[in-house]
């Protein structure tokens, strides 16, 4: 049976799950939830995701939400198929988890409001908070210096191989790279090298095609 993913293919959190499914060569079906008309807040979707967000999955009668939990479930269930996203030893898995958690607490917390102001608000005809954008850029620069240092001695965030730690960053990073502040990544040699390498992966290219980017 095919995994059903409820979400919008252009949105970052559904993309996190889709990228994982593509890397793991798992078949799926997207059931479009239209964010522009707030379909995610309607009662039918709230039964799948009580916080009124996307994605949610149904796999037979197994249901799950939270993109990082979904990605981890499929990476574990299909550990022997497609790319190994979790790490090879207990210690390596812990390092993967560490950098995946960094994405939540340090990266996403800054990039999400940046993308909201630079991409989403203009699309909705709302005013961008320029003061906030400047503040967030400064803070993001400090965080990306740490990533730059990590990637100076590691090919990928958690070591020599592409893992969930890299994958989990990619959807929001994709949005950031399409804004007028993408130099914040491009001007950092190792970050730029890492981004070119992870976006050359076939799974990412398929995802971008599906999303029409």
């Amino acid at each position, binding site marked *: 049976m095919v995994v059903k993913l409820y979400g919008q293919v252009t949105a970052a959190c559904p993309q996190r799950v889709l990228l994982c499914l593509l890397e793991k060569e798992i078949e799926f079906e997207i059931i479009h939830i239209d964010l522009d008309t707030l379909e995610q807040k309607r009662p039918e979707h709230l039964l799948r995701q009580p*916080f009124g967000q996307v994605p949610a999955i149904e796999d037979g009668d197994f249901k799950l939400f*939270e993109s990082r939990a979904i990605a981890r*479930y499929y990476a574990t269930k299909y550990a022997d198929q497609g790319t190994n996203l979790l790490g090879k030893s207990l210690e390596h898995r812990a390092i993967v*988890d560490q950098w995946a958690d960094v994405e939540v607490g340090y990266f996403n917390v800054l990039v999400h409001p940046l993308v909201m102001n630079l991409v989403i608000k203009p699309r909705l005809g709302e005013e961008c908070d320029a003061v906030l954008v400047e503040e967030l850029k400064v803070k993001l620069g400090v965080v990306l210096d740490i990533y730059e240092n990590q990637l100076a001695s590691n090919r990928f965030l958690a070591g020599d191989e592409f893992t969930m730690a890299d994958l989990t960053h990619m959807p929001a990073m994709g949005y950031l790279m399409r804004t007028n502040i993408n130099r914040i990544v491009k001007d950092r040699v190792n970050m730029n090298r890492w981004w070119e390498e992870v976006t050359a992966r076939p799974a990412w290219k398929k995802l971008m095609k599906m999303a029409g980017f």
Partner: protein
Amino acid sequence: MAMKVYGNGMSVCVARVLLCLHEKETEFELVPVDLFACHHKLPSFLSMNPFGQVPVLQDDDLTLFESRAITAYIAEKHKDKGTDLTRHADAKEAAIVKLWSEVESHHFNPAISAVIHQLIVVPLQGKTPDAAIVEENLEKLGKVLDVYEEKLGKTKYLAGDSYTLADLHHVPYTYYFMKTCHAGLVNDRPKVKAWWEDLCSRPAFLKVSPGLTVAPATN
């Protein structure tokens, strides 16, 4: 050699790790880090955690930061002893534990940490709490607790009928929150209140809570 945890018992993120170690009946050594003297910003500490924060775990030659990555590692390494914090034996149940752990991380934590920051940390810096930030985040927290109230009407704990990391990760911030004048947000929701009281009755909690000593401002 016993695991080393760098940090202090009053820190929320350190307490998260200590609770896990006690639940797993694992020996450890707590190595205090003087935050007021900014020892967490010294090169020797930054070489362990480049983000300059506590906790850091050292287990032989593994150095780990991010409290939830640390709890996941401890729970997995010692999965055969102490409390089953991850339901590792069943992939689907393990995923549900991870789901509600993500909910804590993305929905609960941002709101409650903003409130605690204003009511406890800001006064320690000699400044006045921002009432607008407190109000905005109390409203967000209320909505999250409404979801919890409904979930806890169906299962005893967040991810099912046994205590897991999904519940544990909530404990330290909630402990501080319940000392503020906004404890009603929990107490007015009967299922959430009963869940919280249960979490406070656990032996691991009783060992860690004496270390959570920072007092809130009374507004």
